[in-house]
């Protein structure tokens, strides 16, 4: 059973890391992403003003069990890391990680 949601993402100001809004802060792991609604723009503006994130925007995703899967491949690659260097991704020990992108 999957649920269509919208999640808020951006990049960490200091490191540039991809980050996902959890409802109370930011996480590098997309599975921590919280569904956002009409408040997304206000959250993004506040977090950017507070110097915690850069270029925040909303993307479509689905919640699948305990996981969150962005709808567009570009966002899935952002969530994982480069598929050609899984050793540098967020799932370096998972040989099947690239399959999650497809």
């Amino acid at each position: 059973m999957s649920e269509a949601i919208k999640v808020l993402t951006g990049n960490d100001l200091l490191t540039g890391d991809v980050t996902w809004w959890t409802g109370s802060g930011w996480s590098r792991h997309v599975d921590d992403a919280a569904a956002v609604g009409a408040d997304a723009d206000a959250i993004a503006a506040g977090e950017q003003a507070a110097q915690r994130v850069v270029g925040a925007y909303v993307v479509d995703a689905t919640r699948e069990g305990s996981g969150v899967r962005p709808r567009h491949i570009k966002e899935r690659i952002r969530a994982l890391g480069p598929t050609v260097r899984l050793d540098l991704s967020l799932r370096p020990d998972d040989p099947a990680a690239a399959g999650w992108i497809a």
Partner: protein
Amino acid sequence: MYQYDQYDQAMVDARVAEFSDQVARRLSGALSEEQFRPLRLKNGLYLQLHAYMLRVAIPYGTLNSRQLRKLGDIADTYDRGYGHFTTRQNIQYNWIRLEDAPAILADLASVGMHAIQTSGNCIRNTTADHFAGAAADEVADPRPYAELLRQWSTFHPEFDYLPRKFKVAIIGSATDRAAMKLHDIGIQVVINAAGEEGLRIHVGGGMGRTPMIAPVIREFLSPLQMVSYLEACLRVYNRYGRRDNKYKARIKILVHEIGADEYRRQVEEEFAHILTLGLEPPPAELDRIKAQFADPAFDPVAPGKIDLSDPDFAVWVDQNVHPHKAPGYGIVTISLKPVGGIPGDASADQIRLIADIARDHSFDEVRVTHAQNLVLPHVRRSDLYAIWQRLDAAGLASANLDLIGDIIACPGLDYCSLANARSIPLAQKISARFADGDRQRDLGELKLKISGCINACGHHHAGHIGVLGVDRKGVENYQLLFGGSEGADTSLATIIGPGFSEDGVVDAIERATGVYLAQRAAGERFLDTWRRIGATPFKEAIYG
């Protein structure tokens, strides 16, 4: 090669101090991202898919061993142990922390390097023939002109906010190894009937979403008027280039819309005016620069014959070593395209190894090619075997230069925020499919170029076989093109038909090579056969 003088060094040092202050103000909140973004881009710092990316300028692709070693050290110290050499003869680091950027620029400045004008709507890093000053077929060394252009274009106030980015390439031989006619301005050093050295100026070429081959705007220009003439070319563009639509803002659109003749007329008019202003640097300055590109002390009795009894070495020499102008020397291209590897990537250890080899065997010089390889320009042939052994031990001895395994690929959707599809995994699959060296050599010269979006950083328009990645309703799809060339016979590739999945395009390319093998005439390259027999046999084989 050129050494910074006190003015060059003062300029890059001042830029480091300025950008350090800007980063500090950004981190303190004194600058918003909107305010900071154009400042970081002016220093080559992008925000890409996964992190900040720093693009470092390598003027006309030339480095000494100290500079190259520093690039390796930066990869280790501030990045994740590797760098990516680009089709603009630059290097990019993919995992930069904002707070580290000033320290990296300071490290670069310590070896006479920077990231200035590697982004933004300004004159970008000038590229050049990577065999400049070494090639046997060269009529004159283009590097002194490239260096003069670097000095002219750096921080040029009039051209800091052009309608769009602006790229210049320069070559010094009839063999175009720099895709010269596919640049905003392409310059070829030529010798006229009187034996005088001059410059042929092409304006209005480019790739991107509207590929065009640059027409000749000036057949022969005195090198002592180069700066004034280019000033005129840029001034006309800056005055009339469109700013209302970024997709129509490159100079190629202006030249195309008003016509080469009208553009030439306007440039000549402006040129005549500029000549009255005395903007041209004094001849002594060009002489000063030329003196820094004097030939190294070649051994006049260096032996030309070498032992080729090791078959793997012999293949590598045949494929990756080019004739040098000095007897007993060769030009070595180090392929950064191992089977299944990432085109243009090199580890910090590999970078430092190549720096050491350059120091020991190539008069301290290295070049970066637009095909994402590295070159040792001045190598004694008698040193080749020792060099090959060191390279082979480091996974750097792929004997595939200009073969189907020598693929150009942009970073694509694995790294780039503009990309629509991944380029690198496709390059890896093609490389693996054609891994057999004998098969590659049987196919002969076959330049395959992959771009992950219409911006064409992977030069797909100029590929004998080109691949363009597109986004089809959120799914990666690949269009296949044939018939492009970036050389003296520059041509633009055309799309052959409907696109493919990643696996499908690999199969299609294999079928196309089958057509070539079946129909090639003696001595024909893949491109020659394509031009002779046309698209139909290839379409039939690919689409059935």
